[in-house]
C-alpha cells in the first residue's frame, strides 16, 4: 500500500485544527501545531509534503513561517496552502508573495480544502498527462 502523504496543519485556534483533523485525519498522515515556532521545528522533523498554514499566529505569523520554510533547502518544495480568515485581496496577495502555493479564506467549504490538498499533492507534468491520453 502506498504510504500516506504527510500534512502539517498550523492554527492557533483549536476548533479550526479540529476541522482540519476531521477533514484530513483519516486519509493523510496529519500533524498539528498551534504556533509559528513549533511549525518551523515540526516542519524540519516531520518533513511534510504539504503545510496548511494559518496567518494570524502568536509570536511568529504565518507569513514569516512561510518565508522561513522557503529559505530552507530541505523544505523549499513543500506545498503550502495558506488558510486564513484574512479575506482582503491585499492579504491574499501577500501570502503568494511570501511563497504560498495556494490560499483559502475562512470560512471555507471542506470539500474545497480536500480538492486543493489533492491537487497540490498529486501534480502531474503536462507531458505525462498528454502521454496518457
Amino acid at each position: 500500500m502506498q504510504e500516506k502523504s504527510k500534512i502539517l496543519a498550523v492554527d492557533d485556534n483549536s476548533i479550526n485544527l479540529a476541522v482540519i483533523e476531521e477533514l484530513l485525519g483519516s486519509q493523510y498522515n496529519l500533524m498539528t501545531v498551534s504556533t509559528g515556532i513549533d511549525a518551523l521545528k515540526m516542519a524540519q522533523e516531520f518533513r511534510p509534503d504539504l503545510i496548511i498554514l494559518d496567518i494570524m499566529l502568536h509570536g511568529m505569523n504565518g507569513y514569516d513561517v512561510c518565508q522561513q520554510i522557503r529559505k530552507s533547502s530541505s523544505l523549499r518544495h513543500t506545498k503550502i496552502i495558506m488558510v486564513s480568515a484574512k479575506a482582503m485581496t491585499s492579504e491574499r496577495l501577500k501570502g503568494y508573495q511570501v511563497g504560498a502555493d495556494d490560499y483559502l479564506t475562512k470560512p471555507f467549504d471542506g470539500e474545497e480544502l480536500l480538492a486543493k490538498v489533492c491537487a497540490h499533492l498529486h501534480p502531474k507534468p503536462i507531458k505525462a498527462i498528454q502521454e496518457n491520453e
Partner: protein
Amino acid sequence: MNSKTISTYKDWIKTTAFKDFVAVGVIAFEAIVLVEVLELGKTLTETATQKAWPIDKFITVPMIIALAIAFYIQGRLKERTIELQEAKKMAEAANNAKSTFLSNVSHELRTPLHGILSFASFGIKKHATANPGKILDYFQKIRQSGETLLTLLNDLLDLAKLESGKIAYKFRPANLNSLIDIVREEYNSLALEHNLTIRCENLEANEKITLDTDKIRQVLRNLLNNAIKFSPEGGTIDVISYKKADSIIVSVRDQGAGIPENELENIFEKFFQSSKTKASAGGTGLGLPICREIIAAHKGRIWAENNPDIGANLSFEIPLSLEANEQEEVLIGANLSFEIPLSLEANGQEEALVGSAS
C-alpha cells in the same frame, strides 16, 4: 491705485529685470494676483534698500495697502494650506484606523463562523453513519464557537458604547477593596481549576472612592481573567491596592511570561495580542481597550509593566474623588430630565436628587 501710480510703476518696471514676472499681476490686479505683487514688493524693498533707490518714487500709500493685503492673503493661504494638510492627514489616519478595525472585526468573526459552519456541515453529511458520541462532539464544538462569537459581539458593543461617550456612568462613593474581594470570589473556582492562588493585599484602610461599581468591576474582572490566562500552573496572582496622594492604585501581578517591552503600550490597542500570549489563551483582544475607556472615564490611567523577577503587572490609578462638576449625571427620559448631583464631602455622602420637567 490711481493711474498715475500705475504708470509710474509701469515705467519703472520696464526698466527692471522683473518686468515679465510682474506684468500680468499689475494689469489684472485681482486678489489672487496680489500674491505675485507681494513677491515683487519684497524684492523691490530689498533691492531698494541695498542700492539706496528712492523708494517713495514708486511705493505710494495705495501700493503699501495693496502689499499689506497681499501679505495678509499669502499668510492666510499658508495657514489654510497647513490647516487643510493637517485635517487631511487626520482624516486619512482615521480612515486607515477604521479600515484596520473592520479588517480585524471581519477576521475575528470569520474564525468562529468557520467552526460553526464546518461542524454543522460534518453533522449534515455524517448524521446517518456517525455514532451519537461523534454527533455530540460536533454540537459541542458548534456551541463553543457560538459562545466565542457572542463574547466577541458583546465586547464590540461594549467598546462602541464606551467610545461613543453615550454610556451613563453611575458614579457613587464605594469601597474599592470590597469590590476587589467580590471579583476575587467570582474567580476563585477558575483559579482553583488552574491550581492558582489569588492573594489580595489592601494596604489602605477602607476608604470610599467615587466610582462606577459595575464598570470598575468589569475592569477588575478583565485584569484578573488575563492574569489567570497568562499564569503558569500552580502560580500566584497578587492583587495589591494602595493609596498615593489623592488617588488609589490597584495592581494585578501575575507570574506569566511577561510582556515584551515594545508591546507594553500596544496591548491596550484593539485586537492586539501580545507575541508571548499562549496560543490557547484566546480572548477577543478587546478586554484591555475596554478597561482603558472605563478608567479614562474615571479620570484615571491604566498601564502595564514587567516585574523585575517574573510576570507582568497591570495597574490602574483613579482619583479618590472626581471634580464636583463631573459628578453630575444627566439621565434623559421620555420627557423628563433629572440632574443628580452627588455630594461627596466626607461628612455628607447622601445624594441630593433634583428633578425638573424639561
